């Protein structure tokens, strides 16, 4: 637990020192979402139909942008080696990394979504649902992304490979997440979609950290 806290505060503190890198995904998300009304049509009724898709694809791509730094920096400067040599279990490292990534990317994206959603005609009553769906979805993306980032550590240009590896894994999240968001916006009962989204997230929470920890040990070789 002390390990987890120390590693998490380390990552958060590093992020504060590198504001450009930290704010990039959030800026990207805002830009992409803001472009749709300009490119399609300013009419809210039309935009409301595509809002779930725009928000989810934007959030997914923004989360992917920051994944490359998730483990690569630690691997490059030798920090990862030290952790592997000294720790009996890498689970606390993986969970701290995921938590830091989510706090720095997923949570800001989820909180920003209603604001951007308002520009796409998302009604105020749907805002809590939109946030909840994105909170669940981004947790899952951070978990899957960590596993993919660990797998691509050895590759020289891992960035593109990382994206290609994460996108298929993220398909269920996008399907259930966008569905839940759509139902929330329409004012319909979205419970089913939320349960499925939560189930996918719980599955990722159970399996992804174990896989990531195992892969990291091999990656330092």
């Amino acid at each position, binding site marked *: 637990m002390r390990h987890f806290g*120390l590693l998490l505060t380390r990552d958060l503190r590093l992020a504060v020192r590198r504001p450009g890198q930290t704010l990039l995904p959030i800026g990207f998300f805002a830009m992409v979402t803001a472009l749709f009304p300009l490119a399609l049509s300013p009419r809210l009724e039309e935009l409301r139909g595509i809002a779930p898709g725009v928000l989810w694809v934007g959030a997914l791509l923004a989360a992917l942008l920051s994944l490359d730094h998730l483990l690569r920096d630690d691997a490059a*400067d*030798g920090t990862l*080696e030290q*952790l592997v*040599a000294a720790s009996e279990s890498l689970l606390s490292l993986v969970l701290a990394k995921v938590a830091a990534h989510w706090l720095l990317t997923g949570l800001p994206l989820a909180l920003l979504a209603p604001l951007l959603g308002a520009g796409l005609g998302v009604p105020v009553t749907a805002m809590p649902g939109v946030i909840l769906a994105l909170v669940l979805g981004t947790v899952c993306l951070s978990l899957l992304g960590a596993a993919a980032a660990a797998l691509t550590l050895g590759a020289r240009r891992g960035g593109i490979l990382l994206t290609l590896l994460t996108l298929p894994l993220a398909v269920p999240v996008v399907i259930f997440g966008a569905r839940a968001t759509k139902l929330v916006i329409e004012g319909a009962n979205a419970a089913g979609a939320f349960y499925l989204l939560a189930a996918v997230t719980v599955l990722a929470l159970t399996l992804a950290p174990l896989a990531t920890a195992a892969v990291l040990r091999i990656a330092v*070789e």
Partner: protein
Amino acid sequence: MKCAYLLAVHSLGGRTAKKAANSARTDYNAGMLDVVLEVRDLRVLRGERAVLKKINLRLGVGQYLELRGANGSGKTTLLRALAGLLPIESGGVVWGGAPLATDRSAFRSESLYLGHDAPLKADFSAVENLHYWIGLRRPLQRHEIEAALSKVGLPVAAQLRPTRQLSAGQRRRVSLAALLLARVRLWLLDEPTTQLDADGQAMFAGLVAEHLRAGGIAVAAMHAPLAPAPAARQELVLAAA
């Protein structure tokens, strides 16, 4: 193909001398020591190639082992294999009587490996780096960190600057401070003196001597022998066949 052989063992510490004085059966024990780290017939592959084969080592309390050999002779590979960062193909490593293959937990907390580059975050100061690095092993007080950094000769002003602004030698000194703070028994060091100036080299030799006096063990890959050489010094030359 590479093979390795133990060249010389100068390992008659005070303990062995005492044994010789008080027992008639000491002939049998002569040269024996309390072996803490033992490597038996170690073989390590990189890809298909056996970089290390038939490595045998016995290191006891207060002993210093110097790994020598040309570039690419496998010094780093041996250190990394010992640190658990490379898989061991065959043979075994025994730490404190227990084989590492079955239980690494004691070894993990009692050893520290330092590679070519200091594992430092460029955006953090030396103090912050050590807080997050060695702090994972044991809780550290800030004054302890500052004392260790002063001991390895890092000026107070440099202790608080982001490490990206430090020279290579200063960064190396930060990782030597990590050795002091970690309070581990076994040091695994990969060319620890390369970036150090003359003062730094002498300071490092002093740190090693102090560590050995306190009952520690050090294994270091070196290009030039450590001077002054510790009393209990072994040398392992890794060479191309």
